[in-house]
């Protein structure tokens, strides 16, 4: 294996292009663990840590956020954010343990695309998109499309996910990330991320993503649309919870059975919507 630590994106793309199985090294908190067990043995690693700007979070003029792929969970945990963007620190806090958070990166987590990981679920709820650079140019894609299947994204060999962009939070908005796991810091058995905005007492817009239960985070467009212009009553929340419990494609694994996950989803959806709703209502007053 050879190792490079380029100081520009162009140089990194050139190094990746030379060897088809070359890999980027971000925080290494998953990749190195996989190398230790010899699940992967990349012929070349291209460390992204000296490329300027990739560890920065930038507030966009429209109120959105653009963060570099090397931003760590710890940085996001300490982010002071507005409205629904507070979903970011709330999610980061629930990832693994201090040492993993200090070095693990948001871009690394998205590219690994573990169905039980936290960022895919939270960032799909925030309607994030990803910026991808390749030797032939750049593209931008909704995260929900970037995530294709368990451990599978649209990233082609030689491409780098460089930035993640999040649209501005609504005027009266809030988010909530509720995770059900065996112990604190574990991967999710079931996780629910909600991002919503209110207009007066009624729901103006809402996105709900369920993680840990399907190859990629699950949303239900029709159920979300059904919540718009309601006051998010208990019956409204139960309906969307039940429809998401049907929409997921859970499997039996070491954490829980598929049937158990279907039982947990409605309650967790209700809890997450309630939390977000209460937070947005507080912001409104």
């Amino acid at each position, binding site marked *: 294996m*050879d190792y490079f630590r380029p100081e520009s994106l162009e140089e990194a793309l050139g190094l990746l292009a030379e060897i088809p199985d070359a890999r980027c090294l971000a925080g290494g908190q998953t990749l190195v663990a996989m190398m230790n067990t010899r699940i992967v*043995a990349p012929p070349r*690693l291209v460390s992204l840590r000296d490329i300027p700007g990739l560890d920065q979070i930038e507030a966009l003029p429209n109120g959105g956020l653009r963060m570099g792929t090397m931003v760590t969970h710890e940085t996001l945990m300490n982010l002071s954010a507005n409205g629904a963007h507070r979903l970011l620190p709330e999610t980061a806090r629930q990832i693994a*343990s201090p040492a993993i958070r*200090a070095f693990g990166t948001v871009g690394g987590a998205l590219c690994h695309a573990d169905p039980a990981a936290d960022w895919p679920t939270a960032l799909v709820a925030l309607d994030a998109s990803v910026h991808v650079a390749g030797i032939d140019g750049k593209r931008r894609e909704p995260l929900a499309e970037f995530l294709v299947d368990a451990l599978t994204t649209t990233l082609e060999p030689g491409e780098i996910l460089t930035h993640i962009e999040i649209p501005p939070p609504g005027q009266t908005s809030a988010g909530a990330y509720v995770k059900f796991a065996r112990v604190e810091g574990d991967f999710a058995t079931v996780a629910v991320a909600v991002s919503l905005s209110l207009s007066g007492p009624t729901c103006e817009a809402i996105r709900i993503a369920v993680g840990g239960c399907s190859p990629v985070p699950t949303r239900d467009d029709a159920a979300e649309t059904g919540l718009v212009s309601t006051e998010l009553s208990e019956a409204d929340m139960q309906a969307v919870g039940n429809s998401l419990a049907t929409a997921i494609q859970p499997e039996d694994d070491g954490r829980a059975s598929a049937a158990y996950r279907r039982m947990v989803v409605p309650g967790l959806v209700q809890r997450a919507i309630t939390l977000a709703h209460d937070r947005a209502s507080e912001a409104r007053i």
Partner: protein
Amino acid sequence: MKRTLLELNVNGELQQAPTRPTATLLDVLRDGLHLTGSKRGCDQGVCGACTVLVDGRPARACLMLAVDCQGRRVTTIEGLNESGEAAAVQQALAENGAIQCGYCTPGIVVALVDLARAGGGASENDVRRSISGNICRCSGYVKIVEAAVSLLGGKASDGR
């Protein structure tokens, strides 16, 4: 596999070690530099026995590629021992009977030194969170938490 000479800043000194490119920081610390205070438990980042500080932040030595640590400051339990920074934590652990087999202890000490550095007192919850990535199979954690709270606790417990 080809070995290259690596230069690492460990405990304030530049150290050289011949290294395979795929070696982790833990491999180099233990086998190259004979700093065996950091323990190898899982090699998966789960157990926390290899916790060190990298650029002042707690890190899994088993999940850092040694070659990617060039230009970073690595502090091991040996370094914290020498500087005296670990002494208070170690004494609290000893006085509270918080050490049994001792295998997890260096990692726990590093994690608690990081918590102590943050300053401002720590609740029981803060302590439990700070060592949430350090597995101990002997103690059930109670004595470890009591030791840390006795040392760092401003508010003994905040309930949850």
